[in-house]
């Protein structure tokens, strides 16, 4: 409103001035006015609270809760524009470490990815904020939908003509976690060779880079069964089969049992590999060291770690949060920025 009036006044004054001055002088005067206005504009803009673009790379399984958080956060800080890029968590880490893409916050479906690929070069700390477990999703149009259950899922997945898949283990933790579930199932149900038999019925064509892509394949009837996180299944209204805690990677008490599963994934260069051992699904988030918009990033993380803020959204969407969020050591807690420090506890 006042900008409007201001504009009017300026224009009026300009036309008065114009009548009184010679052409040359008037143009010089105009330049001064424009420069002053520009400086005023940018300083006023520069002095506001968290603002600008906030970039976040995150796991695909966090898409739905983060979308809700984005809305709430941007309502609180209207000058901030949160731009998210979802992908597999390793891929997100590579974008930051290898491709040097500018990023403020990175949220991973497996906190280990942050530890292995981002600390200490690109991040100083790693806050664990939620857990998840793997389930087998399907729709009522899936083959054998009426017969499938917790007792016979591994038999159904071996049947010819059943199309089932998971995400790419090299790019997405959900991918290697799916394979771990299968390895653990072999041990838990005591069926030797079960893993190989299952993989034999899952051709390469049924793998997708991101686990959320599998959802649309399920919904259009192009796939019968897909491995996904429980939170994602709930968020998309899919049918799912809950598996025993021993194999669903959702209960940290069974970490020793989980450690029996090992998956080889690609390393930093094509041709190199690294081993990932099974562990319960713990999500981690960090602030990137050279974040272009550190101020807004801290404000967002502060909101995310609030029990009534981001954590509540996570819970409402089927993903159990840690309340409060955790870091493993006192040392790491000291590295946290002030606004976040008070929202986090030390626990391993």
């Amino acid at each position, binding site marked *: 409103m006042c900008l409007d009036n201001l504009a009017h006044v300026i224009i009026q004054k300009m036309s008065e001035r114009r009548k009184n001055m010679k052409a040359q002088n008037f143009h010089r005067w105009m330049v001064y006015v424009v420069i002053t206005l520009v400086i005023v504009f940018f300083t006023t803009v520069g002095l506001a609270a968290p603002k600008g673009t906030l970039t976040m790379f995150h796991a695909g399984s966090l898409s739905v809760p983060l979308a809700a958080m984005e809305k709430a956060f941007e309502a609180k800080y209207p000058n901030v524009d949160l731009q998210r890029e979802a992908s597999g968590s390793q*891929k997100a880490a590579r974008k930051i470490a*290898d491709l040097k893409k500018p990023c403020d916050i990175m949220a991973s479906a497996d906190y280990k990815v942050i530890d292995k690929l981002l600390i200490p070069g690109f991040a100083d700390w790693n806050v664990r904020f939620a857990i998840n477990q793997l389930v087998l999703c399907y729709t009522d149009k899936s083959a054998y939908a009426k017969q499938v259950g917790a007792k016979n899922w591994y038999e159904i997945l071996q049947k010819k003509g059943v199309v089932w898949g998971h995400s790419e283990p090299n790019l997405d933790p959900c991918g290697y976690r799916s394979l771990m579930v299968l390895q653990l199932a072999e041990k838990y149900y005591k069926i030797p060779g079960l893993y190989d038999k299952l993989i034999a019925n899952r051709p390469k*064509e*049924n793998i997708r880079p991101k686990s959320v892509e599998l959802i649309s*394949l399920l919904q259009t009837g192009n796939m019968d069964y897909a491995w996904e996180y429980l939170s994602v299944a709930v968020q998309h209204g899919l049918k799912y089969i809950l598996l025993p805690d021993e194999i669903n990677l959702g209960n940290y008490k069974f970490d020793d049992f989980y450690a029996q599963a090992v998956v080889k994934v690609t390393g930093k260069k094509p041709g190199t590999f690294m081993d990932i051992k099974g562990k319960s699904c713990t999500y981690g988030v960090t602030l990137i060291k050279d974040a272009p918009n550190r101020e807004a990033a801290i404000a967002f993380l502060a909101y995310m770690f609030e029990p009534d803020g981001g954590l509540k959204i996570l819970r409402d969407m089927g993903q159990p949060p840690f309340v409060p969020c955790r870091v493993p050591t006192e040392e790491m807690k000291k590295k946290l920025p002030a606004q976040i420090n008070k929202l986090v506890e030390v626990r391993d």
Partner: protein
Amino acid sequence: MIKKELFFWITVSCGIVILAFILLPLIEMLTAPSFSMLKETFKDKDVMRSIWLSIYTAGLAALISFVFGTPLAYLLARTNFTGKKLVESIIDLPIVIPHPVVGIAILSVAGKNHWIGQVFAELGVRIMGSVTGIVTVLTFVGLPFYINAAKNGFESISPRLENVSRSLGASMFSTFFRITFPLAWRSMLIGIIMCSARAISEFGAVVIVAYHPMIAPVMLYERFEAYGLKYSQPVAVWLVSICLALFLILRILTLRNRKET
């Protein structure tokens, strides 16, 4: 010599700017990788397999467009009927629709939630993650290019030639094969080239329908995302070089024929 005026120089400058705009990034990309990297990529079976898959699926798509598109192109060139403009707009739709939308649309029809998808499932035809699916997508995006080129070719042939042929006793089939086709084959070939070119470079629609088996653009993108420029540029160089070579050969073949006649 008559002095050239400003208008001439402006047009020449625009031309140079455009050529530079097209050539500079391509030259940069083609010269960036080292020879050893190119050799290594050439030996990589996955890369070569994906390039071959791209070429062969694009070729199939062009062939299907040729077989099914020619009669329609001929019909559009020779007849006028109510709704002709609508039909022509429909044929151009694949050009206008954003590529991922094309992929999503085809995937939705191909799944068991759609009656067509159910028919496919019964017949054992698989669209998602298969060569069939890739060829389906490529045909979808390539068809308008073939049909429009062929239609233009047919339109440039006077219908009187066909009329005379028929009055001399030839049926429509004979007329088409003896008169229309020999005069129009160049346009049809150009249509096939354009359709294949479009198909080979398709990414957004294919990646939604089939990530594996990987066509070259998908592999390029995957390499870029996972390992960066250094590992994706050689793949790009091979893909572009092979495609350019193929199209050049095709062009030369047609040029030689023209000289013969």
